[in-house]
């Protein structure tokens, strides 16, 4: 179980959200620009500090603001795909995907084989040796998902991983996420596309101005939009 209560103050935004994701479940997070989706994900990853609240994973406490406890991101054991990928431009696609395992001491040959398999799953087998800074935006996002999954995370945090993907490749990347989650990993999926939520997620949380304005299964939310934003998204999806 990923159990989060995140209060973060960042510029004009005050984020205050509580959520729980059971093992093997996907929680989709949607919301307009500036609603705090990425901040929420970064807070769970430990990249921005909590001003109040906690992050627990299973029986481990990753962060607890009241106790002044903040485990550094490198020791949280999460698989994170940041917005726009944040790939290492000087490394190849394969080296990017193998980065997590290598950093954690997995031997080169094994890390490489696992990376190649994941790249094939996201439809980028022929780009294994391409420098990451020469990949297109959509390709970079797919590599970022493969990189997050390759680290054998205890929870997955994906920020807009399917943006700019066409239907065919989107399907392949969905498969990669589904398989990782099926191993009992909770996943947080930030998206702006209701179709992703409907296809992948068990639950949907809608954020506006840092607060949860609607929660439920994706189908429930789509059927009974609570705000103008959700109505617009439901109409587009």
């Amino acid at each position, binding site marked *: 179980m990923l159990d989060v209560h995140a209060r973060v103050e960042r510029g004009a935004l005050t984020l205050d959200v509580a959520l729980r994701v059971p093992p093997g479940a996907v929680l989709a997070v949607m919301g307009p620009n500036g609603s705090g989706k990425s901040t929420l994900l970064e807070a769970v990853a*430990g990249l921005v500090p909590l001003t109040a609240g906690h992050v627990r994973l299973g029986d481990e406490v990753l962060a607890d603001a009241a106790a002044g406890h903040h485990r550094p991101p490198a020791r949280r054991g999460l698989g994170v795909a940041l917005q726009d990928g944040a790939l*290492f431009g*000087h490394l190849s696609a394969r080296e990017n995907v193998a980065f997590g395992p290598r*950093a954690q001491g997995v031997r080169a040959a094994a890390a490489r084989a696992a990376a190649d398999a994941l790249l094939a799953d996201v439809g980028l087998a022929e780009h294994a*040796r391409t420098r990451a800074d020469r990949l297109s935006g959509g390709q970079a996002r797919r590599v970022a998902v493969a990189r997050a999954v390759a680290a054998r995370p205890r929870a997955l945090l994906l920020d807009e991983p399917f943006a700019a993907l066409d239907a065919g490749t989107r399907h392949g990347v969905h498969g990669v996420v589904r398989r990782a989650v099926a191993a009992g990993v909770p996943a947080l999926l930030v998206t702006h596309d209701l179709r992703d939520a409907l296809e992948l997620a068990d639950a949907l949380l809608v954020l506006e101005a840092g607060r949860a304005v609607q929660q439920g299964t994706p189908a429930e939310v789509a059927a009974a939009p609570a705000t103008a934003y959700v109505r617009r998204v439901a109409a587009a999806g």
Partner: protein
Amino acid sequence: MSGRTAGRLSSWALVLAAGAGVAVLVLPIVALLLATPWGDLPALVGDPAVLQALRLSLGTATVATTVSLLVGVPLAWVLAHDDLRGVRLLRALVTVPLVLPPVVGGVALLLLLGRRGLLGGTLHAWTGLSVPFTSVAVVLAQVFVSLPFLVLAVEGALRGADRRRALAAQTLGASPGYVLRRVTLPAVAPGVAAGAALCFTRALGEFGATVTFAGSFPGTTRTMPLAVYQAMDTAPEQAVAMSVLLLALSMTVLVALRGRWLGGLPGTGGRPAGRAR
């Protein structure tokens, strides 16, 4: 006058102005190459006085570049962090030597380290050492004028090496040392190399600060540019030969830099056939 004619006229004016710009930059080099006594070049360049100046130039410029790297990379790191107090003022100070006439830099160095200088007097009284008119002074003059080039190039590279990538590496379980070794330094390396190359060529060409602060003594402070200037009076052919040699050195650095940019890093595979699928 019709609009089309006016447009054609103004584009002609643009081409003419651009051509004049190219002429200003290229014609002097052409004149130099035409005046070069190519047949006698090996003998002229092989002259002991020329070789002495060349050795001194390469040696001092290499030391100056090394010193600039040692102090310039940390300085660039500080400048790349806008959130620190006083960084804007610091950047302005670092930029001063870029716009200052080098000869003024030489005068300033003399006033700092000369026998009666701000620090030079004390230094001489305590250690008996005197910096001006030595090879050390040559290096200091070169560092003074070339360090800003390195600092600004490296600062740009550090800013480009987006912090988000370091954060992404952390989330994948990488220790701070691993992040530095595998992400930050490799991303910055081309910028450091470019900065070092710029710094080296600037140091190699240094004249004003050197002649003021270090003088022109054969073997200790008479670097190539000083030797060229000296030779213009006594042996113009030799001056031309040395100039061509300096030109060749600068071009070599330029070509090496271009190779670095275009060739990418070794062992990373070629360009993909196309970005769009």
